[in-house]
């Protein structure tokens, strides 16, 4: 197997005309581009914050009775946040490490390992399932091993092989959370917009004209805001799905990463991820 990799690597280097890499690693341009794009794909972090801060936004629209329940929900959502972000941090660090292995640069990521340190809270309130917690722990170990060894004796192939199951679980957790964020956002949206649909028709006295006008302007702005947010949920989910698919393809084609077909496929995923990122930055 090692021989096959070495032969493949030799061919690739010859094709690309790039210099020889150290530690037996190869320059896998598309793997690197895909890993970099995966590390940078956005949406999830911002939507996690948005989910955490739901109460702040909906509070002015709530009746006292509803606000009591909403306050409890606020605490529940805040309890999830740290774990939600920790998962993303682990995935980003994995993709950065993979990107390094696929290229020739070597810089030290060991300071970042400390971020993974304490693990997930994994309380019943954290919103995560046991398998996600296990995946997080597995991922932390893998990254610690690879990064602490200074990437010695590590190939992209080994990293993809050892990491795939955990990568998929972490992405699954991120997608599950994003779906719940979205459902929650839907109820928030309807809470915020709903009052206007009812109160505006009730306000038809002459001395209420100014109030009604202001309400209509506010409703318009809020409607636009939520439309834009909906788009971000779409993009975030698309991004996570592409990362999952791209990594799965690498795992399936672990020994052919320098083959034309796989390189083409990965280049496409990398490009799609960049388009998604641009969409989020618009």
């Amino acid at each position, binding site marked *: 197997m090692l021989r096959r990799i070495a032969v493949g690597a030799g061919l690739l280097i010859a094709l690309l005309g790039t210099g020889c890499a150290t530690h037996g690693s190869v320059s896998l341009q598309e793997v690197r581009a895909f890993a970099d794009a995966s590390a940078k794909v956005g949406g999830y972090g911002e939507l996690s914050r948005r989910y955490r801060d*739901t109460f702040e936004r909906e509070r002015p*629209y*709530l*009746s006292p*009775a*509803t606000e009591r*329940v*909403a306050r*409890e*929900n606020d605490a*529940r*959502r805040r309890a*999830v946040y740290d774990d939600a972000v920790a998962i993303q941090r682990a995935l980003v660090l994995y993709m950065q490490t993979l990107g390094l292995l696929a290229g020739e640069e070597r810089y030290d990521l060991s300071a970042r390992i400390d971020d993974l340190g304490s693990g997930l809270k994994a309380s*019943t*309130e*954290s*919103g*995560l*399932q046991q398998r996600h917690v296990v995946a997080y722990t597995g991922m932390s170990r893998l990254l610690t091993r690879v990064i602490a060894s200074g990437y010695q004796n590590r190939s992209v192939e080994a990293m993809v092989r050892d990491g795939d199951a955990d990568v998929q679980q972490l992405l699954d957790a991120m997608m*599950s959370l994003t*779906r*719940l964020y*979205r*459902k*929650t956002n*839907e*109820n*928030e949206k*309807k*809470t915020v917009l*709903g*009052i206007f*649909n*009812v109160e505006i*028709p*009730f306000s*038809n006295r002459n001395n209420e004209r100014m109030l009604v006008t202001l309400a209509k302007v506010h409703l318009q702005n809020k409607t636009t805001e939520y439309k834009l947010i909906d788009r971000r949920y779409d993009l975030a989910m698309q991004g996570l799905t592409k990362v999952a698919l791209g990594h799965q393809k690498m795992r399936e084609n672990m020994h052919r990463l320098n083959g034309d077909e796989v390189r083409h496929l990965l280049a496409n995923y990398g490009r799609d991820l960049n388009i998604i990122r641009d969409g989020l930055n618009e």
Partner: protein
Amino acid sequence: MDKTTPHSTHSPAANGNASGPSDTPDSPGHAAASTSPSPSLRKPSAGNALSTRQQVIELADGLSDVADRLHERVLAEIARHDGRAVPDRTQATMRALLDDEMLLRQRANALYADAAAHVIGGLAQSQARLVTLTAEAADKIRRIGIIGEVTSLVGGVLALAGAVASGQATPIVLAIEKIQFHNAALKVLTPPAA
């Protein structure tokens, strides 16, 4: 929401003979027919009690759906006045229903927040029954002729949502009975579906 909300079953109301609580019986007569399409039949997943993440999410979807139907119903009721002033009493009823709708949304969001690990022990009622009940309620809210009756049906659903949040079996069973009784009472009041 990415339209995964459960829909229901035009199944007949459960047996029972008591009426639900009636607090705001402002009854402006038959509401305009809802414009939303007829809900399609959807089978809730099998399984016992509210024990998995997916089941918790399904119930939350069901509550969100009840809130959506309620909102439609309130708007339809307002539309009946066709731009004319809405009487204060009707306004008060609509506002009360709007509050109920918001509370349902908070209850749904509570379940979403719990979705991963929310396990309710000792609950005899099957999850399928819970989901069907909320779906039936959502459907009835669209069709009940008398808006005051919507108010008390929603009261039953809110009690269910609150009981689920408390995680205790007894209040859940009581809330279910309340909705069932109410459904039975409504059978008498409800005009034939359009």
